[in-house]
């Protein structure tokens, strides 16, 4: 397999594509291009086929799902599975619950992470360092691992079986805090000094000067947070009991766990559940791709 492309400079090379002396090495270049491109597209097919097959299947009527020979495209496309999932199986409600949880948590996470990241970047003291270590610890020892005690805490706080019980425990995210810390470290101190000289209080400097310039990071974290919360399974699972409160993931897993899986509904419901994220990603793609996660996690 051609590993050659690895080594070449990168996409950002000046226009005209071929670095230098294109003519002389024309043949080798072409070979490499063909080799590398085929490997890339082979991988793309491997990654894309499961989703494509799944989405195409969701438009097949029940009878066609299991009848041989299987066909790639539905011969009589239908949205019956979608309609049934949305109305009879209450997915409109789960969709609403999930949207509520994801939006509220995301807003709270972005503000809390920005504040904490800013504090870690612009102030120094031993307890801030200790706090940073604690935040890192939440990545190393994730709370999902201590399931039963987490459940007891939620119960004792009176958050059991409410959407608040899903929202509140998810506010702290190490990735968010360190993304902002990384960003605010690059903001010159002079800006902070200038605000101080102007008599701005520390907190109003944060809200009026620092937050607005952190807008790209806020959007990036918002997308990540929305995705995490939308797809979250373990917290809703231990917190929610009443089916009316279910989020999409819990509702889906209850269909999967049934004795006889209703595939027609399951396929439709699954596609419904992933559609908003795909749209969100396509709109905000550049914020995801440019996320400087590396820097944040290395700290």
């Amino acid at each position: 397999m051609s590993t050659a492309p690895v080594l070449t400079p990168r996409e950002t090379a000046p226009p005209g594509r071929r670095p230098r002396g294109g003519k002389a090495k024309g043949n080798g270049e072409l070979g490499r291009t063909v080799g590398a491109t085929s490997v890339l597209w082979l991988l793309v097919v491997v990654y894309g086929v499961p989703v494509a097959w799944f989405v195409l299947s969701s438009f097949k009527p029940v009878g066609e799902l299991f009848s041989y020979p299987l066909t790639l495209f539905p011969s009589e496309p239908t949205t019956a599975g979608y309609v049934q999932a949305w109305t009879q199986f209450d997915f409109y409600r789960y969709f609403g619950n999930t949207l509520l949880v994801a939006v509220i948590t995301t807003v709270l996470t972005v503000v809390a992470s920005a504040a904490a990241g800013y504090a870690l970047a612009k102030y120094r003291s031993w307890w801030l360092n200790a706090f940073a270590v604690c935040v890192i610890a939440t990545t190393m020892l994730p709370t999902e691992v201590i399931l039963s005690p987490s459940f007891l805490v939620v119960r004792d706080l009176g958050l059991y079986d409410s959407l608040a019980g899903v929202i509140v425990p998810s506010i702290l995210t190490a990735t968010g805090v360190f993304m902002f810390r990384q960003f605010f470290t690059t903001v010159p101190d002079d800006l902070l000094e200038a605000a101080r000289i102007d008599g701005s209080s520390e907190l109003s400097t944060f809200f009026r000067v620092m937050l607005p310039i952190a807008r790209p990071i806020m959007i990036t974290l918002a997308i990540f947070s929305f995705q995490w919360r939308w797809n979250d399974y373990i917290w809703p699972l231990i917190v929610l009991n009443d089916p009316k409160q279910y989020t999409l993931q819990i509702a889906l897993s209850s269909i999967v766990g049934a004795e006889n899986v209703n595939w027609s509904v399951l396929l439709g419901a699954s596609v419904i559940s992933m559609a908003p994220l795909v749209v969100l990603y396509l709109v905000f793609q550049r914020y995801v791709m440019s996320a400087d996660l590396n820097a944040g996690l290395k700290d």
Partner: protein
Amino acid sequence: MAQTAAPLAGPAAATTTTRPPGRARPARRGRGRTPGYVLAPLLLIAVNVVMFALFFLWPAAIGFYYSLTSYTGVGQARFVGLDNYVQLFADDSFYAALLRTLFFTLMVVPATYVVSLLSAVLLTSTYTRGKAVARVIFFVPWLISPIVAGVIWRWLFGENFGLANYVITSLGGSPIAWQSNGDLSLVIVVIAATWGSTAFTMLLFIAALKSVPVSYYEAAALDGAGPWHKFRHITLPSIAPTSFIVVLLGTIGAMKEYALIQALNGGGPGSENNLIVQYIYRTGFERAQIGYASAASFVLMMILMVIALVQLAHNRRREANR
């Protein structure tokens, strides 16, 4: 109000700095951080501190306490000392779950590493075409929840209805027992997990690859180094810090895998593919043995901590040797 806090804490906070002694200490220190403010940073981190205390420290503390009791969620917690731990270390199904989790981790982490690095390399290469579209497709699995990912792969590898067995039988083979053979079933989970975690890891690698200085490659090319040589001796060492993060986060992620396998095969066939978190969930919630499940949680926490510390130490030593 933050302003009033500043003069109060002013000189005292300076003692925490690491400057060599003997040098005059100015009120304001360089390198970006400001000593002397207490109230403002405290308020800024307040929300996250409360969250940390409520949903991390508190569960950890009561978890440890309950692991020493026979608590079932209601009534009094009876103190039983280390009984739960003794029982746990003699429990075959605990070992089975632990072993299965280790197997799973040992397969997923290298697989994710290789595939993510390969796709990152291809997406940053000048030789590939159609990168923009490819990138979007690589990212779709990241958008899909572990539950739905489990459903997708279950649909693909159903024993009586899946596309995989259909293709195999159409080509003249006999259907393969993807679900009722425990090992094959785990392999499907490994493939699904790799598929799902590639995009995020790839993002980390792309950032790392883009920051390798081009001049290194140019110098190597002048020396006549071949592609593999350059990859082995320039690319890999340059992205070592990222590799470390990828392996560490991948290991932790794999050790706590739950949702994906729950949707894909429910830990089956039977309980053969119950991973450790499933074991904890079952004992804690389905059998309400909270004390016992807490003990299992603690063993898992210890294992994760040891893994993290070993990897950190290894990373330190390697960086020191450079």
